[in-house]
């Protein structure tokens, strides 16, 4: 028998009304504008774009406000919005070597073409809270230095000359990049599909897994060959025009992780690589992604799969925080009938258990009495 129970409409409507009120907060405090969030909480906006897998700053800012700053809720909102739009096509692959750079550092080469360019980084700050910021002090304009325009090739291209580092990841020429938004996940999966999943994966989850590889669970001796942040141009092939149409530029963060590798039956000793590419400015995420990408290549490189970070099905199946939060949070929704059924079952088992206990006790007493 199935009994549908209805109710709660008024409670739900009032709860949402209360949510709107609490979201707005004290009415004497000015309401946030989206441009304030885009400009001043830019890295939060970037995270929502990266994990929401949708590059649109205003929408991400709206999601952040609507979610009251709850990032995973904001990411969920963006993912839901994405599904309402038609898809015009796939862009031509971005050229990160031609990036308009805002930051570029390498931990492997001090003197590389283009140099070490720090950009707007938290590195080397003292991590002391700044009371002047709280007081709304004016901010200096940035320093400028006129410099020749220099090409800044990717570090991987420099290392490649010695032949001691593997080349960029190749696929058969007829390979069509897989798309997890179109086809369900299937294991084992090709590296291109893994990278798509990792790029939208949860920063915290990937960070923890990347950290685990450093602590010895699938140790792979990483160096940051390069981290670069900046704008890349997007172009789209469309049938109505005889050339790829320019769409404008987006900010991305790229990480080339270089890993020592002592060689295996499948590959000679060399430096292997992990790759990270994410929307916006987020080198933590790009680095974590690159560590995970490298760890997940264990099978390809003939390494033993001994740790969580190397287990493709484990990592990719649990990296999506929208799926994860959906399944964890659904537990709080009404499970009254399920629970009643389980309650009945536990009552019956308990009654049987107690009956058995009583029988045993009675038998014991009888035996003792006989002795």
């Amino acid at each position: 028998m199935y009994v549908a129970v209805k109710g709660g409409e008024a409670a739900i409507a009032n709860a949402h009304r209360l949510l709107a009120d609490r979201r707005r907060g004290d009415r004497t405090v000015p309401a946030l504008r989206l441009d304030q969030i885009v400009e001043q909480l830019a890295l939060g906006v970037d995270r929502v774009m990266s994990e929401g897998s949708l590059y649109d700053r205003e929408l991400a800012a709206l999601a952040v406000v609507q979610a009251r700053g709850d990032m995973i809720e904001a990411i969920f909102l963006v993912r839901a919005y994405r599904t309402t739009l038609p898809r015009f096509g796939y862009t031509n692959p971005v050229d990160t070597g031609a990036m308009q750079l805002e930051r570029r550092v390498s931990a492997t080469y001090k003197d590389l073409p283009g140099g070490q360019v720090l950009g707007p980084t938290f590195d080397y700050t003292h991590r002391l809270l700044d009371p002047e910021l709280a007081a709304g002090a004016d901010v200096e304009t940035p320093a400028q230095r006129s410099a020749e325009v220099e090409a800044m090739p990717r570090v991987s291209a420099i290392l490649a000359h010695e032949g001691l580092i593997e080349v960029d990841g190749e696929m058969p020429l007829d390979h069509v990049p897989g798309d997890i938004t179109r086809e369900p996940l299937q294991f084992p999966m090709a590296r291109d599909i893994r990278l798509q999943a990792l790029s939208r994966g949860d920063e915290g989850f990937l960070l923890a897994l990347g950290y685990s590889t450093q602590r010895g669970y699938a140790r792979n001796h990483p160096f940051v060959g390069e981290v670069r942040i900046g704008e890349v141009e997007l172009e789209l092939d469309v049938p109505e025009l005889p050339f790829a149409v320019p769409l404008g530029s987006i900010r991305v963060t790229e990480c080339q992780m270089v890993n020592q590798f002592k060689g295996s039956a499948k590959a000679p000793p060399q430096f292997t690589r992990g790759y990270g590419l994410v929307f916006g400015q987020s080198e933590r995420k790009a680095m974590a992604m690159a560590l995970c990408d490298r760890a997940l290549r264990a099978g390809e490189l003939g390494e033993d799969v001994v740790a969580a970070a190397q287990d493709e099905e484990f990592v990719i199946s649990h990296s999506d925080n929208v799926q994860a939060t959906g399944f964890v949070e659904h537990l709080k929704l009404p499970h009254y009938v399920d629970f009643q059924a389980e309650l009945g079952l536990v009552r019956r088992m308990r009654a049987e258990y107690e009956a058995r206990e009583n029988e045993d006790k009675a038998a014991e007493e009888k035996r003792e009495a006989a002795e």
Partner: protein
Amino acid sequence: MRGQEAREQAGRKALMATLAHAAADEIARLWNESGLPSEAELLRGPETGLVTVRGRIGGGGAPFNVGEATVTRATVRLPSGQVGHSYALGRDKGKARLAAIADALWQDPAHREAVETKLAAPLRAALDAARETRRVETAATKVDFFTMVRGED
């Protein structure tokens, strides 16, 4: 003829790139000052959709899908018959419409010069200046290494 055609396409593409990068209100402001006509029949859109951004494994290897971006596009036809297209990141429909008209006007020899000088040139100058500012601000954060000599001889 082939060289001529290639130059033609490069010019048209450069205009589309400039319009895609430019802010909507800047395009609208320059348009109002330019005296360019803005009557056109909308053949498609303006409509917003997604493109899937592709990267390459390792930076230069096989392509993979990174994620989506919003794009708005429009197609228009001028009273004189030219058809213009526009595509740009974001969701600005007014910008998409004006950019498509600009593309159509550019194809009309009677208007190309005005589109280039009154619209594209000032937009390009502003974009170049902004890009240059970013570049020199970034360059100021470049590390100059120097060697410290410690001890005697």
